[in-house]
């Protein structure tokens, strides 16, 4: 766990409502204009966890910004949409990131919106080509798990979001209100580095969940079961010869990209 408790500050209900209302406004405008924008980050977890979403507020997990996933072919429509909603783009971010990321600021509401095109690419790439259509208004649940589990120096806020998701949703082979373990297993079978980080973090989530007093014993037990089941799925996915070769090299060679601050 990193020393900085990023996203772990007290946040009153009115401030949380301000973020939630703004997300609602952007999602509705996006739907009307036909732009494919799907929410990720803390607000996505809140929306997808109606039963356990209360844990964020109870455990001091604050909203800090609004993150969306999109397709780069729609970047002009996204820019027009955000402009119509009163946002100004930090154009240099789009240029420096070679079109993979855009940041929009709203001076009046002091809101900050990140749009990640095609993939999230911090410690490990999490692509979403063809995946944004399977859920709405968020990215699919499998990608939400991977969004958090790909962070090598994982923060407490990411652990809390993952605990919520594991409590709320069953594991399975589809995306309908289910964490698609086929998708996660395949991605981990394609990339040993991602497998290494995801399995390491799932174990951290299991361990840390046992120490939260706000969780009831049955919730802690469910997190343990869900993690154990997820690891079985991931291990069962057939691995390539390249994967097995990379596994033999193991931690001798760094398996992830360094990121100063994620999310």
């Amino acid at each position: 766990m990193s020393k900085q408790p990023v996203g772990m500050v007290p946040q009153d209900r009115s401030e949380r409502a301000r973020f939630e209302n703004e997300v609602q406004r952007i999602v509705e405008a996006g739907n009307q204009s036909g732009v494919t924008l799907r929410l990720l980050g803390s607000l996505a977890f809140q929306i997808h966890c109606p039963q356990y979403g209360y844990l964020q507020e109870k455990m001091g997990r604050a909203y800090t910004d609004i993150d969306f996933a999109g397709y780069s072919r729609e970047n002009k429509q996204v820019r027009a949409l955000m402009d119509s909603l009163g946002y100004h783009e930090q154009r240099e971010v789009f240029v420096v990131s070679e079109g993979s990321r855009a940041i929009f600021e709203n001076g009046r509401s002091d809101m900050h919106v990140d749009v990640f095109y095609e993939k999230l690419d911090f410690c490990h790439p999490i692509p979403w080509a063809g995946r944004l259509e399977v859920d709405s208004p968020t990215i699919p649940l499998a990608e939400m798990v991977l969004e958090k589990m790909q962070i090598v120096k994982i923060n407490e806020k990411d652990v809390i979001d993952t605990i919520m998701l594991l409590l709320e949703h069953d594991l399975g082979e589809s995306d309908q209100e289910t964490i698609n373990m086929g998708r996660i297993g395949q991605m981990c079978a394609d990339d040993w580095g991602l497998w290494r980080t995801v399995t390491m973090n799932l174990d951290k989530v299991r361990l840390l969940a046992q120490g939260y007093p706000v969780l009831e014993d049955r919730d802690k037990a469910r997190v343990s079961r869900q993690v154990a089941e997820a690891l079985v799925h991931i291990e069962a996915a057939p691995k390539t010869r390249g994967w097995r070769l990379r596994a033999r090299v193991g931690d001798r060679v760094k398996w992830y990209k360094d990121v100063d601050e994620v999310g």
Partner: protein
Amino acid sequence: MTKLVRELMHPGMITCKPDTPLGQVAVLLDHHHVHALIVADRDGRPLGVITDFDLLAAEWLSTDQESLDAMRRMTAGELMTFPIDTIDGRAEVCDAAARMRHDGISRLLVEEQGKPVGVISVSDFVASLVEARAIERRTVADVMSRAMLVCRENTPIAYVARAMTDASYRSVLVVTPSGRPVGVVSGADLLPFCGDEDAYKSTAAQVMHEILTIAPTASLREASDKMIDQHHHRLVVVDEQQPESIPLGVISTYDIVGMMAQPGSVWR
């Protein structure tokens, strides 16, 4: 009669020690012209196998100095696959082939009475297919080499020479981007560059000689006539319907002599 593994295998093992650095493994693979080494302990007991594919990891993962240093510290014992897949020398060859296909493996350590006696690999099966080929001597197509070594016109001759050496080929066919043959580079074409330090500056187009073509349906007598008459060691076999496309193969004096030398040929 069904062939046994012990009859097709390569007897003995080419080994390295577990603490052999990857660079030294590469030297041994290159020196012995093999794709894999058996990693054995000081008493010669096999521990695992390390292959040329495994060594790709060294280049694949050495993306920065730190990674390069880590990979240079790695040894055969750390990168090898273990345990080694084994098979009894008395097993039938087709069973070994089926197992290698099913398990996606390229070689098996052959044991007899619990002791390693050799290695059987995909290359051994490939060689056995050549031996099993029925001997025909009717047409060029029966004898020609259907796999060819090719290069483009602008390929430096240093690379041409390397390809010929590595593949044990005596010539390289020079083709256009669309595959149309335009010339042949043979060992004789490269002789003038012996000892010339600037050889790498010349290209295949500058040293190649003209090609002679022949149809796949032509008889071996016609092919021999043409080679003797024009004093060429090889003919490019082209598809008469598509003479501009990539050739069907090459027939050389070597192919004809090889056919003559085969057990069961009319010359034996």
